[in-house]
């Protein structure tokens, strides 16, 4: 037995040494070739993994012997952000990376570890970006990340189910919404998909954000949570959980529950971004074909708005090498070329802050997204983008209490205020 154990230990150690050497050996490089590592979560099952791999292959072929970009696959978006924040905090930014345009990551603009693209974007390259995109990626006059993916998050509704309930058009205000909800319930259809689970109660958080924006306008997140409009928005959200307006498993349910009910044709209304198009097209083609987009029925003074904003920018490590800097800028320009962005957009369903037009054969639902984005009276971020992770996590907890009748809308908002004050 001892001999067996000893042999096993020796074998394992030998394997470790061999494997470690293989892992750190790197890949063969041509002399003078600049290699750029690109850790990204656009891999695996992500809808952008295929187009990114395709763009990478084209780029590497175009610059063979000069520049090579290597993807470092990082599963899990949250894990990627933890890793990236650790790398940035350690002063070792990756050559290229996906920059989350949130308050935490923007703090690194104050350091010199990020490459500054301000001068590059001031030239003709800057013209490819949609209006306001560069300004959104600029802090104190410096643009240290390149605008890329954007989000538009409208209300989705199943027009077949609306027809079935005898509803001609999407409700424009709360009174019409109540009538439509009653008609849907009479036809045996649950009006909305909701959820209190997940890290941010995503679907319900978006309903709340839409309602708050209708009450507070473009500057809604500049208002303190104690402003009465948030209690009113909470009241709207609470009504979604009452009288059979959502499914019974919404309390505690996660994104799989809310999306699953919509795709199964159980619910008539849902909220999500364009990244969900590929999923619904594959899993529920009939619902995909029947889906239309709208803005939330008017709750307050404002109407016709959409939730949206920057979702992912592209960042790079600062360098003193002019050749490496040129290589990085070449890659960034390639990634933001309208033709490449269009291919990426049409393949993945994602939308980008770059001027491009979808082809006529692009997914009709994706074209709907472009339409609602262009028709929006204004764009505003959602609640989860405006508050810290702790407050966002509290949102789902407090919402479950409100849905179960334990909290009033005032108490729901107070729970968020308390968490924000901690």
């Amino acid at each position, binding site marked *: 037995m001892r001999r067996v154990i000893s042999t096993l230990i020796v074998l394992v150690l030998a394997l470790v040494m061999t494997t470690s050497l293989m892992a750190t050996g790197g890949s063969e490089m041509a002399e003078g070739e600049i290699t750029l590592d690109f850790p990204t*979560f656009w891999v695996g*099952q*992500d809808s952008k993994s295929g187009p990114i791999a395709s763009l990478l292959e084209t780029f590497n072929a175009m610059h063979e012997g000069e520049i090579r970009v290597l993807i*470092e696959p990082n599963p899990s978006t949250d894990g990627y952000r933890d890793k990236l924040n650790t790398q940035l905090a350690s002063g070792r930014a990756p050559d290229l990376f996906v920059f989350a345009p949130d308050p935490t990551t923007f703090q690194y603009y104050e350091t010199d570890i990020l490459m500054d693209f301000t001068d590059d974007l001031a030239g003709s390259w800057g013209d490819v970006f949609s209006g306001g995109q560069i300004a959104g990626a600029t802090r104190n006059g410096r643009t240290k990340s390149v605008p890329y993916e954007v989000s538009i998050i409208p209300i989705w509704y199943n027009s077949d189910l609306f027809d079935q309930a005898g509803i001609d058009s999407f409700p424009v205000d709360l009174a019409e919404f109540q009538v439509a909800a009653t008609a849907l319930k009479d036809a045996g259809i649950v009006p909305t998909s909701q959820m209190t689970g997940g890290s941010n109660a995503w679907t319900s958080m978006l309903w709340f954000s839409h309602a708050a924006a209708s009450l507070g306008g473009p500057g809604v997140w500049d208002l303190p949570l104690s402003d009465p409009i948030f209690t009113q928005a909470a009241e709207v959200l609470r009504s979604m959980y009452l009288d059979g307006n959502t499914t019974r498993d919404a309390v505690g349910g996660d994104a*799989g529950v809310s999306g699953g*009910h919509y795709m199964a044709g159980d619910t008539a209304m849902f909220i999500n971004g364009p990244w969900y198009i590929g999923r619904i097209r594959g899993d529920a083609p009939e619902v995909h074909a029947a889906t239309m987009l709208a803005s939330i029925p008017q709750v307050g003074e404002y109407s016709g708005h959409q939730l949206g904003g920057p979702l992912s920018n592209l960042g790079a490590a600062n360098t003193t090498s002019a050749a490496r800097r040129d290589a990085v800028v070449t890659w960034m320009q390639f990634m933001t070329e309208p033709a490449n962005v269009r291919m990426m957009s049409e393949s993945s369903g994602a939308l980008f802050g770059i001027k491009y037009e979808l082809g006529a054969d692009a997914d009709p639902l994706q074209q709907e997204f472009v339409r609602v984005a262009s028709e929006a009276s204004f764009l505003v971020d959602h609640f989860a983008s405006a508050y810290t992770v702790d407050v966002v996590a509290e949102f789902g907890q407090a919402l479950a209490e409100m849905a179960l009748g334990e909290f009033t809308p005032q108490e729901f908002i107070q729970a968020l205020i308390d968490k924000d004050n901690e």
Partner: protein
Amino acid sequence: MQAVAAQRLTFAGGTARVGKWIVLIFFFIFTFLPLIWLLISSFKTNLELQTNAFGLPAIWQFQNYVNAVQISSLPRLFLNSVIVSVCSTFLTLAVTSMAAFVFAREKFPLQQPLLNLILAGVLVPIIGLMAPYFRLVNSLGLYDSLVALILTYTGINLPISTFLMHGFMKTIPAELEEAAEIDGASFVQRFTKVVFPLSRVGLVTAGTFVFLFSWNEFIYALLLTSRTASRTLQLGIRFFVSQFFTDYTSMFAAIVLTIIPSIAVYVFLHEKIIKGLTSGALKG
């Protein structure tokens, strides 16, 4: 009278047997139902899983298993997980058994403060050590290697493992070592011939803890590696979780595939494992 007593005893015995079976069946269901659910779910589509979580699949989706192997490079990651978990367990036990022996059986200046200092590591959340470990591993040139993970997991587990081993070694009677000393045993021999063999239960406890930690750990595996050649199973399983979509059924298939070898090893070797653990238990 005797017949009545015998009848009562038989009834009591029967009730006890029924009670025993009820408890056993309850725990059997409690243990196996989630595994059976996992297995069945791994053959569903994601829509079926979300809309009919406890039903059977309409069409059994063997493609999920193809996805599991193709997308996540499971065989390679499984081997890496075995190597990392086994090596970090052996290394941790080797270091902490020696450390615990000295702290438990010897007397030297600053013994208690030093022990407290090591054990205080239990209270430090590992997420707080990410930046120091990242810098250290980079400085040593070990980034993106299995050795980085083995050393990191060993370092993280030193406090808890020392705590467990120290507590166990304190319970071994000092007379055994004194007898060995009279027979001429050296300091090293007291450890290797007396205390270490008698610490088998403590070693298994600490070893199990370290192994499970190393097997399930995700965030350091992601932080300290970049290529499939040096990554572990937990990262492979997460390849089915993307920013806005989780392919649960393929992920379940991947989990089933990773469980099978462990079950197979246990089924074929459990007698030997138990025999190995219990042999020598009566020594001394």
